[in-house]
């Protein structure tokens, strides 16, 4: 029963990882940009929520109404002012600029908030749980997290399939040059893609902050978990990313069940195994390749 419990907890944890990973995957799909500051930006959202909760007294969930638009705006501006300028310089310049940004964000947060661990408090919900059998207990918070992840993915999929913006994003993803020829303003479109990416990672960051404590040095870990979910799931596939997140989550909780010290390591090892055996990931979208 302990093992079943570990698997169920991992499955729910996968929802959080999928939430963190979606934006990384989307931005890569649309503009072949691998944002190394993605994890630090998610963490920034958690700290912004912390400040809002501290100053206004509203709850962490309500703070999303402010945090998400703020992060979306930041994403649009970041893309238009800085990241679009790296698009011409190829992979090298975008990797170096986003890595520089990660260093700036991590140390900026450290300067403002010190190295202490913080948490976002949602009161009794944090411990509220659902008794399924006498040995299997599922927390409401992880359930809500997974549910939110699914809602985000469904909304993104509908947006990509049904809307004008979705068509433009898919066109840019298939062939950026051709999309520009038929009149799509890439710079604006890339800004919107980054806005959506930071909106989703902001939700992930706040849920992470509710689930566990967080500190300025945690950004790289978030980036790595998001990245592993994307690679395990396969590039360019939203639902693959959810499955990738769940596989990562289950690997971690099962590894942690063996020995708490193996939790993170088990996730990395499953990622490396998939890299060796099936480098395109489990559910790759045809035609999407690593830049």
């Amino acid at each position, binding site marked *: 029963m302990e093992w079943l419990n570990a698997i169920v907890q991992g499955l729910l944890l996968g929802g959080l990882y999928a939430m963190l990973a979606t934006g990384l995957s989307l931005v890569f799909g649309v503009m072949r*940009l691998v944002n190394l500051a993605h994890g630090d930006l998610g963490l920034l959202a958690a700290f912004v929520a912390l400040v809002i909760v501290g100053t206004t007294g509203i709850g962490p969930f309500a703070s999303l109404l402010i945090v998400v638009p703020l992060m979306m705006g930041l994403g649009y501006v970041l893309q238009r002012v800085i990241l679009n300028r790296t698009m011409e*310089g190829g992979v090298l310049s975008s990797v*170096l600029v986003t890595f520089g*940004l990660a260093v700036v964000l991590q140390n900026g947060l450290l*300067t403002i908030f010190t190295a202490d661990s913080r948490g976002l408090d949602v009161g009794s919900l944090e411990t509220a749980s659902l008794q399924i059998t006498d040995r299997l207990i599922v927390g409401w918070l992880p359930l809500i997290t997974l549910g939110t992840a699914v809602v985000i993915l469904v909304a993104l999929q509908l947006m990509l399939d049904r809307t004008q913006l979705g068509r433009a994003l898919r066109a840019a993803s298939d062939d950026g040059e051709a999309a520009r020829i038929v009149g799509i303003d890439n710079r604006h479109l890339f800004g919107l893609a980054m806005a959506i990416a930071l909106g989703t990672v902001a939700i992930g960051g706040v849920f992470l902050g509710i689930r566990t404590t967080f500190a300025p040095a945690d950004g790289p870990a978030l980036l790595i978990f998001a990245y592993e979910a994307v690679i395990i799931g396969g590039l360019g596939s939203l639902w693959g990313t959810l499955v990738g997140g769940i596989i990562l989550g289950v690997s971690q909780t099962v590894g942690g069940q063996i020995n708490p010290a193996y939790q993170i*390591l088990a996730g990395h*090892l499953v990622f*490396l195994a998939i890299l060796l055996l099936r*480098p395109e990931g489990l559910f790759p979208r045809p035609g999407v390749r690593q830049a």
Partner: protein
Amino acid sequence: MTTAAVPLARSFRVERGTTTSRITALVGLALLVMFATLPAWGSGGTMKLLVEVFTLLAMAQMWNLLAGYAGLVSIGQQAFVGVGAYGLYLFMDLGDLSPVPAIAAMAVGATVIALLTSLFAFRLRGGYFAIGTWVIAEVFRLVVSQVGALGAGTGVTIQSLVAMAPPDRLALTYWLAIGVGFGSIVVAALVVRSRLGLALRAVRDSEVSAASLGVGVTATKRMVYVIASVGCAIAGAVYYLQLLRIQPTAAFGVDWTVVMIFIVVIGGLGRIEGPIVGAIVFFALQEVLADYGSAYLVALGLVTIAIVLLAPRGLWGLIVARRPMALFAVERRLAFTRAADPDPMEAS
């Protein structure tokens, strides 16, 4: 027909050396003599600082080979700093070797480890390669943190170095650091001017065209990855000769790569002169600003972003834009042997 007057086969030869490169070699030799004799006239503090300067310069040169010449942006070279540090401990304290044989034995081990990690990392490309190498470094850290013989999470102190007389240890470490610093420049220059270097630049500029011309793309990249990783491990081992105390979080910390990237980017990516200029700037800034801690790192990050966007060839790029020169004879040019001929065409 005027064209018939021009001889079709002009006599020429391929040259690499230039007056500047010969002057560089002489100045380099003079600097080497100056640094090598420094223990006789300099202070211990200067020697300790120079150990840091030269080992970080060597790591940066190796990172530049990877990113600047092979287009492989690794955020995981700290894996090999850690391999150097723990290899040193393994062969000195557990294997009972003296420092130089221990570093040589470690380098053999690091070659094997670099080949093995390349099997994973080379499945990834571009930005995903960058994060993948980072994950591999994290795996190294987490595994070492579990191994009791390597001190697990708390780390180890290299006892056989503690037993050495401090002045002897400092002198040895210092000379080895000079060796890796100057050695890294020589290795980088040799790699870049070799057949491998030409293949590298072809691959960096276009993998498809390079492959169509018969360049083995993956083999070329793997070769550079191994050279750069083993070079980084050797520099890491020399750095830890001075530090003595090895902790997994520090030895496998991403800060090593942050410093390598900063030195290369600010000095000039894809030029051998770049990391030299970058290392001078980095240590000058560190002397002045290191007290500001994390605010200093914020500044380093901002400078990196600004340089990539505004001056992608770094400070050395800005210098050569005003006055074209190459300190190292790594480019090939045609030299026409008859004085009446037009200016020699440049070919790289």
